[in-house]
């Protein structure tokens, strides 16, 4: 199946429009956190990027509730999960989760990102879609304290079993 970039962008556009037109009462698959509602609606966007400058082809920003449907969409197109990264925007009071995807047969790389409130970073897990996400999410939880709703086991992966600190948060310092 040869997938072209415009088709994929169109599919994402569809997904984002659906998310935008969804009635307020019907939450997406996962409700997200109460904090997510208070936050100003995250800018959802889908734009093509210059591969030579960025290293990826498609940059998609979704609301926290839509990461699972984005993952399902990419799963259906035969993508594989590259990594899940946290990003601590302390100045903005936000936490960003970046999902990198690559395609094992085409030169296609997609970045899906979502912003969470820093005080309570909660996002639904995509380990139901990509089992490989399990470890990546545990790692993001280790480093940033991002909670992945529905994750089977969020015990520390790389940090000691009893670790209660999140070292890659910008305000982390050993006492």
């Amino acid at each position, binding site marked *: 199946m040869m997938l072209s970039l415009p088709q994929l962008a169109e599919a994402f556009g569809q997904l984002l429009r659906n998310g935008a037109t969804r009635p307020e009462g019907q939450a997406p698959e996962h409700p997200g956190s109460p904090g997510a509602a208070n936050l100003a609606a995250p800018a959802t966007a889908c734009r093509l990027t210059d591969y030579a400058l960025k290293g990826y082809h498609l940059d998609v920003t979704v609301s926290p509730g839509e990461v699972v449907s984005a993952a399902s969409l990419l799963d259906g197109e035969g993508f594989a999960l590259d990594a899940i990264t946290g990003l601590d925007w302390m100045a903005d009071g936000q936490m960003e989760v970046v999902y990198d995807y690559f395609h094992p047969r085409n030169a296609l790389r997609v970045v899906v990102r979502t912003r969470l409130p820093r005080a309570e970073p909660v996002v639904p897990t995509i380990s139901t879609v990509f089992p490989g996400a399990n470890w990546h999410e545990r790692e993001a939880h280790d480093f940033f304290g991002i909670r992945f709703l529905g994750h089977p086991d969020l015990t520390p992966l790389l*940090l*000691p*079993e009893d670790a209660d*600190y999140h*070292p890659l948060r910008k305000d*982390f310092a*050993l006492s």
Partner: protein
Amino acid sequence: MEPQTELDCSPLVRFAALDDLLALGRANSLWPLTFGLACCAIEMMAAGASRFDLSRFGAEVFRASPRQADVMIVAGTINKKMAAAVKTLYDQMPEPKWVIAMGNCAISGGPFVFPGQYAVVEGVDKLFPVDVFVPGCPPRPEALIEGILELEKKITGRRRWPVVKPQ
């Protein structure tokens, strides 16, 4: 495997000649524990491989079980998650036992020490006594062999070969 309680194994009575013989035997049969942590472990393997050939000194018998090992070559970084396991391994080795700290990480934490670091044990001597330090990042296999010769000297009081002075 539970950790052993520490035993004081220094003998009550010493026999000079016998002690010398025992020291000679021990020094020439240093079996290391198969215990690679990180980069240095590759150089430790290289030291056992054909070009450098630890077996010349009878030290190529890498034993995977701490009960049969005489010297623990700590080859790599020890982090806080690993520290307890390393301590257990040390405790499980029967006396007399020696430790070589190979590489900067095992000596002091090496390049992974910075203000506010949260994971690395800054030197294996924080956990148990170390006999020989072999600096380098990673040390060359020759350096490890020199470390083993140095340990032999520590055991027997004699140097196997004269030290070659740099020109």
